[in-house]
């Protein structure tokens, strides 16, 4: 039942990892997210070095997103023009992020920045989602009609140069915001090992105001390219990608995602969002907590020494 991971250089109980992959896959299928933000903390908890965990789970995100994009693509729900532009930004961001992560490891601050990013991004996104979904649930309970969505688009987005047409998204906007969004998510994917769907989707919906039908497919498409590049960069620059670890996670993830997707039809969208918001918030707080709790040992080995 034990399997030795060649890059992480330790032996793990492989059924645990397959189960973890399945559980995260189930959650990701249920909520339509990548699930990288859940996987990372659990892997670290199981004793996998954080640098290996972050780099190896990126390829898990590639696999789960690939199967997602294929099904969205067959329905014509992927805006390749928009996704490609964002992916371009994502690749630039991934380059920056991997180098930044390398520098952080050298100065011994990688775990601090990872914890801070989890606290900051998961905490804020979780709070916003929770607020929005609870409001919706309350409104439905009271039998109120949902207020008309605001159709006005933020003006500052439209004053920018290099305008492009995105017919599938129903947009005619500057190329700068999608590129910048992609780059930002690329940096996050290198530092946190996440796909970044939890940030991409709300921004695409509420800030860029793309057509709702193409948002998830397009974000998945951008995530595939960004995380694929991140994986290659992590392998090339840091040698921290463990193919055995990622394959184990994939095996469970593929099966879990199937069941998750089947179950998702049984719940209301806003209830699912509220639960997801709670999970995101919990993970963010949990990861951030280590910054405030007195550590059991005030000395720690800094991982990632280079030759």
């Amino acid at each position, binding site marked *: 039942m*034990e*399997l*030795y991971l*060649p*890059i992480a*250089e*330790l*032996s793990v109980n492989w059924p645990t990892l397959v189960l973890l992959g399945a559980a995260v896959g189930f959650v990701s299928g249920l909520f339509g997210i990548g699930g990288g933000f859940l996987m990372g903390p659990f892997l670290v908890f199981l004793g996998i070095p954080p640098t290996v965990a972050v780099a190896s789970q990126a*390829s*898990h995100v*590639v*696999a*789960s*997103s*690939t*199967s*997602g994009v*294929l*099904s969205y693509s067959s329905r014509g729900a992927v805006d390749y023009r928009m996704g490609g532009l964002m992916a371009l930004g994502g690749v630039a961001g991934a380059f920056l992020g991997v180098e930044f992560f390398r*520098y952080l490891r*050298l*100065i*011994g*601050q990688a*775990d*601090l920045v990872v914890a801070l990013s989890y606290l900051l991004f998961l905490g804020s996104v979780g709070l916003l989602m929770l607020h929005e979904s609870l409001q919706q649930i309350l409104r439905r309970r009271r039998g109120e009609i949902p207020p008309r969505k605001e159709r006005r688009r933020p003006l500052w987005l439209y004053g920018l140069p290099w305008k492009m047409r995105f017919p599938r998204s129903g947009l005619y906007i500057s190329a700068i915001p999608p590129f910048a969004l992609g780059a930002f998510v690329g940096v996050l994917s290198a530092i946190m090992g996440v796909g970044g769907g939890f940030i991409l989707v709300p921004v695409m919906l509420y800030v860029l105001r793309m057509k709702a039908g193409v948002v998830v497919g397009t974000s998945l498409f951008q995530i*595939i390219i960004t995380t*694929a590049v991140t*994986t*290659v*960069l*992590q*392998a*090339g*620059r840091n*040698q921290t*990608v463990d*193919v*055995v670890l*990622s*394959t184990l996670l*994939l095996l469970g993830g*593929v099966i879990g*995602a*199937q069941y998750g*997707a089947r179950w998702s039809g049984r719940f209301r969208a806003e209830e699912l969002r509220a639960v997801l918001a709670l999970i995101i918030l919990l993970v963010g707080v949990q990861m951030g907590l*280590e*910054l*405030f*709790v*007195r*550590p059991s*040992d*005030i*000395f*720690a*080995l*800094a991982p990632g*020494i*280079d030759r």
Partner: protein
Amino acid sequence: MIQALPPEPPAIVAPPPESAATSQQLRVAAALTDARVQVDQSFRGASIVLYGAVFNPTDQPVDVVVVVRGPDAPLRLVKKIRTWGVWLNSRPVLFEGAPGFYMTASTRPLPDIAPFGQLRRLSVGVDHLRINAPEERRSVTRYGVRDVVVSRLGEDYLDWRRAVIRLKEAAQLYRSDPEGVRFVDQGLFRAEVELPATAPTGAYYAEVWVFQDGEAKGVSNLTLTVEKVGLERDIYEFAHRRPWTYGVLTVLLAALMGCAASRLLRRE
């Protein structure tokens, strides 16, 4: 005429048979049941038995100390410092070359076997381990990062040193077992070397010391190799020799599995 000369005396007088002299000396011989530890996919650590014999011509009791050192590797340590209520990392301190694995096993607690100075000189025991750190504080530019403190000695050096040992002990990479060497018969002893799954690969050196009256009377040196074999070795070497190809292949594998999953999903 030449024949008339008496035979020349031999240049060197042959020494008397050696066995008579050495049998009066304390000696130790030892061997490992396994000099190669192979790390494959089922590796969960290894337990190697070291056995040996002490030839003790005297009546005085002897002590045996087994020291096993793994390959040295640089090690970086950070200290958490509380700043504005948040625990932050200090700049890492680099210890140039602490053994990746270190264990001692002995017949009695080390301080009872030999005095402090003796143990320190031989570098026997976790407390006397040489963790190479330059004696003065200096900041250097390393890997393009400025102000890396190579060593910060001074009054808190001992704290840092102790922390290295404590953390390594917690990971079961450093260990001292005061009852790890057992005499099974007269002069015959055995000790167990427990390698955890996280033990680094490389060359290990084992020293078997025999002490009498607080002095080292003899030593036997052994080597042990821990190496990855089979698929584990191939993957590790591939990932380090051709990291870019490895990365691309990993991504392709992941994408393929994703495709396969979606095919299966659609069929159902």
